[in-house]
């Protein structure tokens, strides 16, 4: 069942069909309430004051970390570093692990399915370190070509970076297969972009086998500006800090500084404690629904949307079958540009994303400049698909059937 009533923005706009959750999700009242409650009852700078209020803020912040760690199957909460989100998490690894460990002629393997956030940091690292960037190609139906990946992984591979779920197509990648292949053929550090998996199904970091897992709060009912990076303690311990400043230090001498322990070592400056509290509330909210139910609900909606859109002449859907996707339907309609399609759908209150989805390397391979993307979440129901299908039919009419 849909949980629309839990989301104030949607409750306030009964005719709005929000189908852009892969970009950012709406926020349930429990998350907004938790953040307000934090500021009203516990606001002080965590880890700073000896007074009771600061201790309360610290407790809330640390408690949020434990809650989110439980939600993502992270046995050791200290190995969860809060960041602004997936982008910052990946940049942290590229900078603090990548720079000191990648040397000329080393290789970094990424995939053609990546969001720019898990592509550009590696590309730039490769340029900076005179290393080689290798790109794993995709199959026609938008899966990773595992044979290609196999051919790229060698003892020279220093880093393998791939997404758990493609933001552009919704493809769910076989993490365990990829990890076992990478462990067999290389000594690479494995970085998984979890921005699109953490919100949509049960993720157990400890079972994934990857070295780093990055995620964003705002795509999983949490606030913007908070997310995380989970990593192995041994790797974190050996890494240089990403940013320096308050809270991440142990002793500051005139000419040298020693670092604080995990996770503080990677959390310079005043933390986004209210964001962490909001994200913990989001994790509890999703747990209350049950992540298996979230997946089931989305898959039901996506399967139906997929089938109904396919019936429309001129519609082309990208990516694997719905059973192998998360809550995304990426499509085009004849020669109607996705931007025009999005504008026409907007006229009926249907919000979809049109564009390259921050995945230009993938778009080039699909030979399109853009696609339209409808993405589903816990608050959607079949009426959203009704509106989507109606809007696509309308766009067809506006642009004239002949061209489609």
């Amino acid at each position, binding site marked *: 069942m849909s949980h629309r009533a839990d989301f104030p923005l949607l409750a306030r706009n009964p005719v709005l069909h929000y189908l852009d959750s892969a970009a950012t999700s709406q926020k349930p009242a429990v998350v907004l309430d938790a953040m307000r409650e934090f500021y009203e009852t516990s606001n002080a700078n965590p880890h700073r004051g000896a007074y009771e209020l600061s201790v309360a803020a610290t407790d809330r912040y640390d408690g949020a970390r434990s809650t989110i760690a439980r939600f993502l199957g992270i046995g050791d909460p200290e190995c969860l570093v809060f960041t602004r989100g997936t982008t910052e998490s990946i940049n942290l690894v590229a900078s603090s692990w990548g720079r000191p460990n990648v040397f000329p002629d080393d290789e970094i393997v990424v995939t053609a399915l990546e969001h720019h956030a898990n592509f550009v940091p590696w590309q730039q690292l490769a340029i900076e370190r005179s290393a080689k960037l290798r790109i794993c190609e995709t199959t026609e139906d938008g899966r990773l070509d595992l044979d290609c990946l196999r051919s790229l992984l060698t003892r020279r591979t220093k880093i393998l970076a791939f997404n758990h779920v493609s933001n552009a197509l919704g493809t769910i990648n076989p993490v365990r297969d990829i990890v076992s292949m990478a462990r067999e053929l290389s000594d690479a550090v494995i970085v998984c972009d979890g921005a699109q998996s953490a919100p949509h199904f049960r993720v157990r970091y400890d079972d994934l086998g990857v070295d780093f897992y990055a995620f964003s709060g705002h795509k999983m009912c949490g606030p913007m500006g908070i997310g995380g990076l989970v990593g192995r303690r041994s790797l974190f311990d050996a890494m240089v800090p990403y940013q320096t400043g308050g809270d991440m230090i142990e002793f500051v001498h005139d000419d040298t500084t020693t670092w604080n322990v995990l996770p503080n070592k990677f959390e310079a400056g005043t933390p986004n404690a209210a964001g962490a509290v909001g994200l913990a509330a989001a994790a509890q909210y999703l747990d209350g629904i049950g992540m298996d139910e979230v997946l089931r609900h989305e898959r039901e909606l996506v399967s139906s949307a997929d089938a109904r859109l396919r019936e429309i002449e001129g519609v082309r859907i990208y990516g694997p079958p719905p059973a192998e996707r998360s809550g995304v339907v990426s499509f085009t309609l004849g020669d*109607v540009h996705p*931007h025009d399609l999005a*504008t026409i759908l907007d006229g009926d209150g249907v919000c979809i994303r049109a564009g390259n989805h921050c995945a230009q390397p993938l778009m080039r391979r699909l030979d399109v*400049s*853009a696609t339209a993307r409808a993405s589903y979440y816990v608050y959607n129901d079949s009426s959203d698909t009704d509106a989507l299908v109606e809007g696509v039919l309308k766009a067809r009419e506006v642009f004239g059937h002949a061209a489609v």
Partner: protein
Amino acid sequence: MPQSDRSAQISALYQEMILDHYRRPRNKGELEGADASVVMKNPLCGDEIALHVAFDGDTIRELKFSGRGCAISQASASMMTQLLKGKSTDEVASLRGRFREMVMGNTDADSDTAMGSLRSLSGVSRFPARVKCALLAWNALETALSERTGSSR
């Protein structure tokens, strides 16, 4: 805003004239002997336009465009090339200013007959996210003109 108003705005945006220019763009292609060629991209949607201009003194002798994009950007480019052929650079600068005003919502500009078929794009002003699309070719033109000024110095 009531949905019916929004629907009316959508109809006003996608007029037959715009769709016709999208489907059958005028002056599309490469231009031999162009004095200026400018590529302009809209990173938001990945659209790309290349504008090629040939001058005869201070007059635009010929202009063509290539690339791909949405109905708004393509129609704007197509109509722009039709209107500006044979115009002096001063006239072009004035029309460019008028067009910009129109898509930003200035209703005087939208009744200016000198704008010709471009007036059909006045509906864009109701869609702030699409103004960039309408201006893509015009921004390329601005760069082409300034490049020419630069090179003739």
